[in-house]
C-alpha cells in the first residue's frame, strides 16, 4: 500500500470504478470495463498532484469518482478538509469522511469544499445563462437568497480571475476560450473550496493562453491554499504545475513520486516513454525517443500480469533466450498478433501478388520475408534457439496452419505477463510498480542506474 502522507486533505484508497457490460433483455452482466481498478494516493494540504496517462487510461473516470460525480464501485475517498479533520474510523471500519458514503446532506456540504474545472471551456458553461448567473447559481443553490449580495460576490470574483465585473451579464458565446476557462475557474472558486479537481484544464486552449491560465491557477492556489488534483496527458504542463505526479496506465497507478524525482529518474518504463515524448528545446541533448506501439488495450479484458507488458519496450526476456531488447519486443508483439488472429497469411499473399486471381507466383519465402519486415523481426534472430522457433512458426503461418504457428510461438514467454508487479519504494515517497525494480530481481539491470 502507498504510504500515508502526513495529514492529507484527501486520501484515495483502492478506488475502483467498473462499468458493467450487460447483454440480453434481462440485462445480465457479462463483464465489466475496469476503467479505474484500484488506485491509491494522498494529497497533502496545499499540494498539487498530477495524474497523467494516455487518453482512455481512466484519469477522468478517477476524477469523477473521487468528486462523486459518478458512484465508485469500491474503495474509499477520505476527505479531511472543511473542518472534517481529526475524525477517526467508526467501529465497523468505515470512515466518517468517506466521500463515497456521504448522505445527501453531507454531500451537499462536500460540494462547498471540493469543486472541479472541466476540460472544454466552450461546453462547460450553460450557453443560455449569463456567465454571472452561472457562477452565482452555486451561491443560490447553497442558500444565499440575497440577489444583490450574490452579484457583488461574483463581480468581485470575476475581477480576481482577470476579467471585468460588467462581464456578469454577458453570455458564454461572447468570450474566448481562455476567458471562458477563467469564468469556469471563478465558478469552481465561488464556494471557497479547499480542494479542486482540474480535468485537463488547459488542453483545449491555445498554447499562448495556456501559460496565462496555468499561472492564474498557480496564483489562486497560493492565495487560497488550495489543494489540487491536476489531470493531464501533457507531461510538460505537469512538470510546471504539480508538486507530485502519479502516472496511470489502464486503470492502475504505475508510478508516483515528487515531480522532480520522477522526471529526473523515472522508474517505470511507461513513465520513461511518456517523458521521452516531451519535446526538448536542446537539439544536441541525447535521449532516445521511445515510441509506444499500438493502442491502450481494452479495460474490459486487461492483460495479465503487468498490464503494460503488451506495449512495454523494456519487457523482460525469459531466461532461455538472449535477444536484443528491440527484437524481443518484436517477437512478443508478433506472438500476440498471431494469438489474437490478426495475421492472415492469405491476405499478405494477396497484397504481394500482382494479380489477385493468381496467388501461385507468391512463394512461401516471400510471405515470410514480408512478415519479418512488417514486424521488424530482422532477417535472422541472434539467438539460434529463438530463431528456430520463429522459423517454424513462420513456416506454419505461410502454409496457413495458424494454430500450429500459435502453438510454436507460445514458447516465447515473459515473466511480465505472469507476475503482477508490486510497488517498489525508491525512497521519499517515490513508488513504482515494475518487475524490473523488484529488489531480488534477476531480470537484468533496473531501468535507470543513477
Amino acid at each position, binding site marked *: 500500500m502507498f504510504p500515508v502522507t502526513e495529514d492529507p486533505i484527501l486520501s484515495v484508497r483502492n478506488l475502483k470504478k467498473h462499468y458493467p457490460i450487460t447483454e440480453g433483455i434481462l440485462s445480465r452482466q457479462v463483464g465489466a470495463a475496469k476503467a479505474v481498478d484500484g488506485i491509491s494516493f494522498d494529497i497533502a494540504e496545499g499540494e498539487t498532484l498530477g495524474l497523467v496517462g494516455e487518453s482512455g487510461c481512466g484519469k477522468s473516470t478517477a476524477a469523477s469518482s473521487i468528486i462523486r460525480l459518478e458512484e465508485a464501485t469500491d474503495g474509499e475517498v477520505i476527505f479531511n478538509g472543511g473542518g472534517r479533520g481529526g475524525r477517526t474510523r467508526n467501529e465497523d471500519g468505515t470512515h466518517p469522511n468517506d466521500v463515497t458514503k456521504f448522505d445527501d446532506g453531507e454531500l451537499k456540504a462536500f460540494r462547498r469544499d471540493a469543486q472541479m474545472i472541466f476540460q472544454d471551456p466552450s461546453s462547460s458553461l450553460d450557453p443560455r445563462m449569463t456567465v454571472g448567473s452561472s457562477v452565482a447559481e452555486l451561491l443560490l443553490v447553497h442558500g444565499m*437568497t440575497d440577489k444583490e449580495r450574490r452579484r*457583488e460576490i*461574483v463581480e468581485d470574483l470575476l475581477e480576481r480571475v482577470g476579467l471585468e465585473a460588467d462581464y456578469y451579464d454577458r*453570455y458564454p*458565446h461572447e468570450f474566448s476560450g481562455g476567458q471562458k476557462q477563467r469564468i469556469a475557474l471563478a465558478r469552481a472558486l465561488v464556494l471557497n473550496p479547499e480542494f479542486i479537481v482540474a480535468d485537463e484544464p488547459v488542453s483545449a486552449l491555445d498554447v499562448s493562453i495556456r501559460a496565462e491560465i496555468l499561472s492564474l491557477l498557480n496564483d489562486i492556489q497560493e492565495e487560497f491554499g488550495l489543494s489540487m488534483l491536476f489531470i493531464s496527458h501533457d507531461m510538460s504542463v505537469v512538470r510546471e504545475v504539480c508538486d507530485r505526479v502519479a502516472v496511470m496506465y489502464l486503470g492502475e497507478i504505475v508510478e508516483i513520486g515528487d515531480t522532480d524525482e520522477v522526471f529526473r529518474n523515472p522508474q517505470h518504463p511507461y513513465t520513461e516513454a511518456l517523458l521521452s515524448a516531451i519535446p526538448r528545446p536542446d537539439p544536441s541533448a541525447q535521449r532516445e525517443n521511445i515510441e509506444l506501439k499500438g493502442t491502450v488495450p481494452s479495460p474490459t479484458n486487461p492483460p495479465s500480469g503487468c498490464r503494460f507488458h503488451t506495449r512495454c519496450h523494456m519487457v523482460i526476456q525469459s531466461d532461455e533466450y538472449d535477444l536484443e531488447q528491440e527484437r524481443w519486443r518484436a517477437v512478443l508483439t508478433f506472438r500476440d498478433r498471431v494469438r489474437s488472429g490478426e495475421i492472415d497469411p492469405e491476405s499478405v499473399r494477396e497484397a504481394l501478388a500482382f494479380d489477385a486471381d493468381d496467388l501461385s507466383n507468391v512463394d512461401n519465402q516471400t510471405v515470410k520475408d514480408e512478415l519479418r519486415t512488417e514486424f521488424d523481426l530482422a532477417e535472422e534472430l541472434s539467438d539460434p534457439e529463438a530463431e528456430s522457433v520463429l522459423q517454424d512458426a513462420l513456416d506454419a503461418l505461410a502454409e496457413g496452419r495458424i494454430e500450429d504457428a500459435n502453438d510454436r510461438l507460445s514458447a516465447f514467454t515473459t515473466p511480465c505477463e505472469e507476475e503482477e508487479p508490486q510497488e517498489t519504494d525508491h525512497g521519499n515517497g517515490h513508488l513504482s510498480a515494475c518487475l524490473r525494480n523488484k529488489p531480488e530481481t534477476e531480470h537484468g539491470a533496473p531501468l535507470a542506474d543513477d
Partner: protein
Amino acid sequence: MATDRQSFDEIDWGQIDEESEREISPNFIIVAIGTALMGAVWAFDYFFVTGTWDAAIGMDFGNQYTPTFEVIGWGYDVTQLDWLFAFSLVLFGAYMILPLYQNPRMTKYYWRDMKRNRPAMASLGWLLFIFVIGVIGPAIIQAPTVDLMTKYQPPMFLEINNVYPINCVGEVAGGDCHGSLEHPLGTTGDGKDIFRIIVYGMQISMKIGFIATLFVVTIGSIVGTVAAYAGGLVDEVLMRWVDIQQSFPTFILYLLILYIYGASLFLFIVLFSLFSWEGTARYVRSNALAKTEEEYIKAVQLSGASTYRVIRSHIMPNSASSIVTDITLLIPSFILFEAQFAFLGLGDSTIPSWGVLIAQGRSDLAFAPWITLIPGLFLFFTILAFNFLGDALLDALNPEADAEAEQ
C-alpha cells in the same frame, strides 16, 4: 478593488441556512395572477351568468349562449376554448415573451440573427398581424350573419354578373355588380361578410395553434424529461406508451366521437393535441439525454443543485429552441388538418373558420372564386409563414451550432 465589497472567501457558510433554493420568479407570479383572474371570471360566469340563464330557461342546455360580460354591456360568450386560449396566452406571455425582456442581451443577439433573414421577418410580421387582429378583432367586429339579400357581393375592384346577387350593395355598371367598401372582401352564397369570417377565422387558427401547443409542449416535455431522468423501467414504460400512441389511428377515434357527440372545434383541438405530443416527448427525451452528458450539466450537478433545478433551469431552456422549432412545424399541420376536415364536412360547419369558408365556396367556384380563394390565400400564407419562421428560429436559437462553426 473596493475594500467594503463582499468577497467569496469571506462568506461564513455556517451562517447561511439551507433555505429554500427555489425563488418565486416574476414569470410564475404573472401566471399565478393570470390564472387567479381567469378563475374568478370563470366562477362568475358559472355561478351568475350560466346559472341565471339556466334558471331562466328552467333547464341546463350545456352549450347555450350565455353572454359572460353582459354586466358591462358586452355580449360576448366565453367558451371552454376561450378559457384554454386565455391560459395558453398567459403562459406564452410569461415564459416566452417576458424572458425576451428579462434577458436583453440574448434577445438582441437572436434579433440580430433573425433580422438578416428577410422571409422570416416578413413571416413574423404576417403572424403578428394575424395574431393581433385575431385576438382583438372578434371582440370589436360583429360576428358574420346570414343575409340572403346581399349574397355573392364581389370584393373591392372585382365585379360579378348582376344575376347572382339579389341586391347589389355597390355600383352596378354594364350588368355587372361591382365590389364596395361595405363588403371589402365580398360575401358568401348566404350573404355572410367574408372579411368578418376571415377575422374570426384568424382567431380560430390562433386558438388551434396556441391550445395545441399548450398541450403538446406540456405533456411532451414532462414525459420526455421524466423518461430521460428516471431511466430504467419508467423510461421503458413511457417510451413504449409513446410507441403505442403513435400508431394509434386518431382520425378514426375522431370520427367515432364525431358521430356520437357531433363535431366541435373543442373536440378537434383537444383530441388531436392529446394525441400529438409523442414526437415532442421523444425529442425532449433524446435532447435531455444528450444534454446530461454536457460538461455544464455536470458542473451544475457538482454544485449540489437538485434534479428539479438541473431540469428546470438548464435542460429545459436548452431544449426550448428545439421545441420551438418543432412547434412551428406542428402548428401549421394542425391548422391544415382543421381546414381539411372542414372541407370534407367532418368539422363543425357552424364556426367561421377558414376551412369552412373554403368548403362553402366550393360550389360557387365558377362565378364567385373569391369565396374559396381569399381564405385559401390566408391559409397558404399563414402556413408558409410558420414554416419560414421555424427555419429562421432553428438557425437563430442554436448558439451551439454557431460555436461549432467558429471552431
